């Protein structure tokens, strides 16, 4: 039943790295969508002209628009997903591209992160996230379990057998990264976000974001979406809405989601990110393949 899965990336890629990968015909479309979105949202296309929080969300909106452009390119080529999954804020992207919310609403959801950032700043919470390359979720879990409490940090995302993300109190994240380096991480570095997406503490800072999702109008997605939290198949708008909320304060198991997609019969994965980021941190079995924009 499920053969083709579309994979949506989260935030993190630099806009210039995303847009440089778009072929000319997609660049035109990107420019058009960006102009529409930035005009509506009151964002400047020159990053430095935006206020600090606006600058951050502007980058994320660019990522969202790139996903939309690549998604439309794939479907325009006749590649139709049987199912999809969104990594972190890729959940917002997939909500828009699969029609659970309008593209404008998806942008508005991203914009609500400003309220979260403002709240964290007001409360003076020192938070951070970090990427660890060279450890699987279980290996890292074994290393951190005895040394840190869940209040201090959690594994925010298990991405593959060699890629994980941690999040929590900035000081604990820094200590954990140092520990990972000593224990043989190929690379362990702070993302310097000032946020700790996927850590439970984010719930109290994201009340406005969560309320916005509750009030937004969600429809059934055009294609099923696999939850990266409980690996359930979501076909109703209400479930997609909850997934958008959970996304802020719940750890992800992307590695298990990929495995589940394979169990469901998926053999062809399509990375919807313009810079092929998903294919780089995800792994599938030998009989499967992840296609990127370059391949298509």
């Amino acid at each position, binding site marked *: 039943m499920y053969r083709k899965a579309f994979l949506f990336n989260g935030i993190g890629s630099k806009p210039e790295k995303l847009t440089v990968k778009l072929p000319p015909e997609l660049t035109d479309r990107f420019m058009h969508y960006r102009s529409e979105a930035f005009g509506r949202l009151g964002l400047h296309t020159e990053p430095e002209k935006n206020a600090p929080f606006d600058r951050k969300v502007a980058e994320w909106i660019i990522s969202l628009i790139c996903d939309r452009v690549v998604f439309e390119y794939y479907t325009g080529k006749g590649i139709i997903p049987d199912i999809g999954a969104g990594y972190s804020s890729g959940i917002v992207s997939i909500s828009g591209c699969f029609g659970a919310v309008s593209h404008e609403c998806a942008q508005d959801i991203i914009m609500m992160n400003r309220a979260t950032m403002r709240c964290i700043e007001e409360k003076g919470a020192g938070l951070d996230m970090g990427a660890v*390359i*060279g*450890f699987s979720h279980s*290996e890292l879990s074994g290393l951190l379990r005895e040394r840190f409490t869940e209040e201090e940090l959690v594994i925010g995302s298990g991405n593959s057998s*060699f*890629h994980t993300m941690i999040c929590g109190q900035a000081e604990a994240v820094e200590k954990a990264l140092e520990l990972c*380096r*000593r*224990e*043989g*991480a*190929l*690379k362990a570095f702070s993302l310097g976000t000032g946020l700790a997406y996927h850590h439970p503490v984010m719930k109290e800072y994201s009340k406005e974001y969560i309320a916005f999702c509750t009030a937004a109008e969600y429809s059934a997605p055009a294609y099923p979406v696999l939850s990266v939290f409980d690996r359930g198949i979501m076909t109703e708008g209400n479930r997609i809405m909850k997934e958008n909320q959970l996304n802020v304060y719940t750890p992800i198991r992307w590695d298990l989601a990929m495995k589940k997609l394979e169990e469901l019969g998926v053999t062809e994965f399509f990375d919807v990110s313009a810079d092929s980021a998903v294919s*780089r*941190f995800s792994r599938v079995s030998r009989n499967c393949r992840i296609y990127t924009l370059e391949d298509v």
Partner: protein
Amino acid sequence: MKEITEEIRQEIRDMIFDYYAEECETDRSSITMETDPQNDLGSDSLMFVELIEMTAEKYGLDVKLQSIGKYMLRTPMNTMKDVVDMFCRIYQYGNDITDQ
């Protein structure tokens, strides 16, 4: 320890150069043993992981990334020569590379 011939060493070198040329979209002939993979070619740690996976598959090696990471703590990969040397050591020592 596994013996490494000059032929295998050359094969590993070619594999690494070809890989970086393709991934970093660089002319293969512009890469030398003195090239800095990170600063000159713009490579990153995810590319490095893929190269390790390719090598392990090609030569049937069983090596943990953390063993390589611990080795790299003492021996940074600043040039392509460092990278080639390290992959030859992975070929020879596998997980015991940490003790080298």
